[in-house]
């Protein structure tokens, strides 16, 4: 029989410090995360035979002269043949790596990310003395960047469904509440916020206010994926991969497709439907949800796009309290991208938090009897790449 069939499981996770880390480099965060996640799993670098370096990492040190992140890390880590994967967001990468493990192509895969230094938002703008030339259809030529791109989407959403900014702001309020329960979050120490606090924060791109936008932090993370059999021998409780999928749609902050609301042709829905189908669980089975909520509008729309609420009813779903700890779909119990951290590519943070919840390691924000969780990722334009990973424990 070609290719064996083996279940994959997450055996190790690690979060580096998050926030402003002026004394760190991207490389040192990445290396710390790799070592930390392996230690969490009770494994060593010699056990690793596959790497998943996340996109947008500044993998290459200026001293190396290397041009390929994969080859740089293969050389750096141990000079033995190693399988390399780089395939979208964290949930999608781990879904595909699970398939690679199932098929016997590798035994221990480490997904990792780290970013320090230049902010990704407007603070990080480099001053030029001549107009820079950039890819010709990029909206930055017109003063666009990530936040306005989502603001365009939010503006149309408010109009089409009759909501106001106050309705979107509820998502920020829930994220901050959860952050106050997470001592590792960047914003938790600042305390809870209200809808008025969100609406009184300064406008960045109408209708999105500062407190509706992701943080712009440094930080890193890593996740160790292996066979269920090996994970059962690891130090921590194994968290099994039940299913996962990824879908890609439209070009990177360049193409804008319509319509924006229908689940048909929506990559979020497509990847989620596939993941749920493979995992053989339903939406109602999800005890804890890690949502890639890079903006208030994204958080709200995600409930609709993944099928947890009807189209146009995301804000009502949140207002009813379902997404708070104690609700039927506790979402971003770490504080999410608005109040926990957003270091460049933060999609592994959703995986890390869901794993903590399923292990019962979430302390003051623990979801009781959490057995099945969903880690989600979207982005690279308005939901151009999306993936879902469904995890479970015995």
């Amino acid at each position, binding site marked *: 029989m070609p290719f064996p069939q083996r279940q994959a499981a997450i055996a190790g996770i690690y979060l580096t410090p998050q926030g402003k880390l002026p004394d760190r480099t991207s490389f040192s965060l990445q290396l710390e995360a790799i070592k930390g996640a392996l230690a969490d799993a009770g494994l060593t670098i010699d056990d690793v035979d596959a790497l998943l370096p996340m996109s947008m990492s500044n993998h290459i040190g200026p001293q190396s002269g290397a041009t390929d992140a994969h080859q740089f890390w293969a050389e750096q880590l141990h000079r033995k043949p190693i399988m390399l994967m780089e395939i979208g967001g964290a949930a999608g990468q781990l879904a595909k790596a699970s398939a690679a493990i199932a098929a016997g192509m590798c035994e221990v895969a480490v997904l990792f990310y780290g970013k320090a230094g230049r902010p990704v938002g*407007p603070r990080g703008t480099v001053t030029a003395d001549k*107009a820079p030339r*950039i890819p010709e*259809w990029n909206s930055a030529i017109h003063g666009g960047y990530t936040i306005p791109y989502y603001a365009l989407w939010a503006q149309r959403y408010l*109009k089409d469904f009759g909501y106001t900014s106050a309705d979107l702001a509820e998502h920020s309020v829930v994220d901050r509440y959860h952050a106050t329960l997470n001592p590792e979050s960047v914003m938790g120490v600042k305390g809870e916020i209200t809808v008025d606090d969100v609406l009184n924060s300064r*406008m960045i791109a109408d209708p999105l206010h500062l407190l509706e936008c992701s943080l712009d932090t440094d930080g890193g993370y890593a996740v160790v994926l292996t066979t269920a059999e090996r994970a059962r021998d690891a130090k921590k409780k194994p968290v099994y991969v039940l299913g996962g999928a990824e879908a890609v749609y439209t070009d990177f902050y360049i193409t*804008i497709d319509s319509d924006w609301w229908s689940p048909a042709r929506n990559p979020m829905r497509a990847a989620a439907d596939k993941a749920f189908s493979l995992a053989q669980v339903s939406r109602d089975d999800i005890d804890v949800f890690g949502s890639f909520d890079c903006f208030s509008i994204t958080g709200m729309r995600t409930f609709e796009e993944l099928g947890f609420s009807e189209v146009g009813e995301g804000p009502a779903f949140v207002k009813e309290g379902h997404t708070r700890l104690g609700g039927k779909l506790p979402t971003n119990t770490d504080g999410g991208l608005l109040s926990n951290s957003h270091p460049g590519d933060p999609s592994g943070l959703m995986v890390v938090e869901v794993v903590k919840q399923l292990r019962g390691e979430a302390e003051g924000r623990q979801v009781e009897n959490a057995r099945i969780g969903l880690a989600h990722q979207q982005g690279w334009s308005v939901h151009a790449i999306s993936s879902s990973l469904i995890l479970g424990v015995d």
Partner: protein
Amino acid sequence: MTTTPYLKPLPAISQENEPFWEGLKRHEFLVPKCADCGSWNWVPYPACRNCLSENQEWTKVSGDATIYTYTIITRGHGQFNDEAPYALVVAQLAESPLDCLVIGNTRGIPNEELEIGKPVKIVFEDIPDEDVTLWRFGPA
């Protein structure tokens, strides 16, 4: 409201899309139109999104459009921030089939008059000291 010198990003023009930028210099907005199925394709891609034909022709559009959505930006990157608040609009061109949703700035439309569904028209702005013309959206 262009300041001098112009330090905002400009397009790196490629061989494939040079006809578009040459068209802008003539104050014409050209969109690849499929010679086989008639679909307009924005942003330009090597083949028609509808029928995958490579037989596309750069075709001048009417310039008529309506605002699909917009945002007024109060925090911009670099030199754009000096011009804040400025508007970014997604306009749907009158041409069909296949929606052509084009992103750009406004000229001559007060920010407070922006609304979804408002008719606009493509206008042109020659960038001083650069061999580039950009499109903007002006009053219909």
